[in-house]
């Protein structure tokens, strides 16, 4: 038999663990951006990307510079930021409260979950004319639209997070004789916090998306109004300058949430 003839040598086992763990690669993200913008710049300069297809990135930068110098940037940015702040705070805070209530009380859950599921898929933009009748053409309708849009994803993320709190921790709290309020305060809320914060990332991005929709009606100033005006004038430089501002807003908000996560969720480490 062949088995008998083979001497029982120790087989060298290569280490096969490792990988599948994302590592920080600092400059790659920046490199991708620079590469794409570089290609666009060269293409638009040499003419194989027509001025109808994409604007020159350097022109977009120049437009941005003009915005800054003329002071128009803040004239547009401040109303937008205040709409975003008021609308998103309103929608997210009510959403978190409702979400926690759904997570804690079965009656609230039975009543609200179908309602939220019914509201979620409604395109809030389609309701815009109605919002104007309900809340008027001024700031209130813009706050309402953004609040309404951030409310539903926040609710869903929040009650999902409350549901995912480790039940064994709750049982342990009960067996140590903690009161209901103590359990909610010391176990449920901290346990749900990671899920709530990652839900906020999504709802705040939706708030930025809705900013443009909110400024469709009756807004003279605002980043959304600026983008819409540029679109209707087919002014690609201004359009892209506005879009870049929205992207930056998104990056900033995401960074802020990341910072909050590190502060509040320090216990995870």
């Amino acid at each position, binding site marked *: 038999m062949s088995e008998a003839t083979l001497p029982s040598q120790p087989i060298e086992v290569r280490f096969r663990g490792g990988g599948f763990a994302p590592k920080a690669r600092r400059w790659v993200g920046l490199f991708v951006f620079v590469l794409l913008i570089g290609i666009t710049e060269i293409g638009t300069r040499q003419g194989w990307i027509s001025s109808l297809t994409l604007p020159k990135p350097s022109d977009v930068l120049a437009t941005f510079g003009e915005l800054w110098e003329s002071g128009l940037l803040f004239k547009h940015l401040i109303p937008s930021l205040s709409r975003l702040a008021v609308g998103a705070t309103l929608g997210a805070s009510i959403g978190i409260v409702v979400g926690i209530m759904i997570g804690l009380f079965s009656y609230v859950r039975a009543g609200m979950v179908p309602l939220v599921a019914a509201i979620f898929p409604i395109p809030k933009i389609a309701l815009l004319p109605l919002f104007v*009748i309900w809340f008027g*053409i001024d700031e209130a309708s813009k706050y309402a639209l953004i609040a309404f849009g951030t409310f539903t994803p926040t609710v869903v993320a929040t009650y999902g997070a409350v549901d995912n709190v480790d039940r064994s921790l709750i049982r342990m709290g009960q067996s140590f004789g903690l009161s209901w309020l103590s359990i909610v305060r010391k176990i449920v809320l901290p346990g749900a916090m990671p899920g709530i914060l990652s839900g906020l990332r999504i709802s705040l991005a939706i708030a930025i998306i809705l900013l443009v929709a909110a400024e469709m009606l*009756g807004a003279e100033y605002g980043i959304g109004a600026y983008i819409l005006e540029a679109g*209707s*004038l*087919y*002014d690609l430089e201004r359009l892209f300058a506005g879009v870049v501002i929205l992207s930056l807003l998104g990056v900033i908000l995401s960074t802020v949430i990341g910072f909050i996560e590190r502060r509040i969720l320090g216990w995870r480490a």
Partner: protein
Amino acid sequence: MVTFNRRQTMGLIGAAAATSLAAPAIAQNKKIVVGALRFTSHSASFVAAERAYFQEAGLDVELRFFQAAQPMAVAIASGDVDYAVTAISGGLISLADKGAIKVIGGAVSEEPGIEGQKILASDAAFQAGLTSPAGLDGKKFGISTAGSSFHYMGSKVAEAEGINMSFTPLQKVGAIIGALKSGQIDAWSIVPHIAKPLAGSGAVHIIGNVSDYLPNYQVTTVFTSATNANDERQQTSDFLKAFSMGASDYNSAMIDKSGGEDGVNEMVDLIHKYVYTDLERAKAAPSIINGTMRINEGARMNIASVQNQLSWFQSEGLIDGDITLDTFVDTSYVETFEA
């Protein structure tokens, strides 16, 4: 059942993408696409299509309908539509500046003696004393977007009256009507077939005519892609010829009433196939008749009015100040006049 492996599927997707990309290019040789809105102001195209004027000119025309002028202009720039009629707007001029489109003729214009576009006031503002455009100082004027024809008209009225108004962008005509009815904006200007029924309901009031401020205002123009204007001269002049015949029929039936009451009815029947199709004939007819405005004979164009509009867009900083009339308009196709 036919099954595909991954490679075949990718091949199919690629082939599908290639054919759909190639299709418009093939279509251009055989037939042309004319963009239109379902407005009476686009009647010249409808008449030319219904009475086979396009066919006689050797053009196989497909009418494609749009909800708004802006996407239609972009469709011309992308080559999906060959010819269309729309109001002059900042967006149209910007597209021309990028070498995508050219204005080649005139369509609807204001004419003294013919009821044209109306200036409307909301009921609340009217009751508070806004009974003529002179009282518009400090009021809110509804526009679709900055650089639209509404913006131009409002500005010109304000300029003539020596007053200041604020402009409220509301994107869509429906939203403007809603805001006007509920008194959230004070005034607006719009074509007669929308203005008159609104005024009839009592929710808004007509306080003036645009033609008092902008006599001979060249409201809409015929435009096409720069490629068509430069390289397809025969096709373009054929189109304009057929379009003019449609315009001429429309004017003589609806304005000069050469065919009498029967002529009007016949024209209304024709237009009703395209406009207000969701309303029955009896309800649609008054709106179609109310919407009557003269379409320039021979697609001639009031170049002075076009220049005035171009200068206004530039003075407002809505478009590049270096754009000249020549980049925007190709005057070689139709007769131009200054009024």
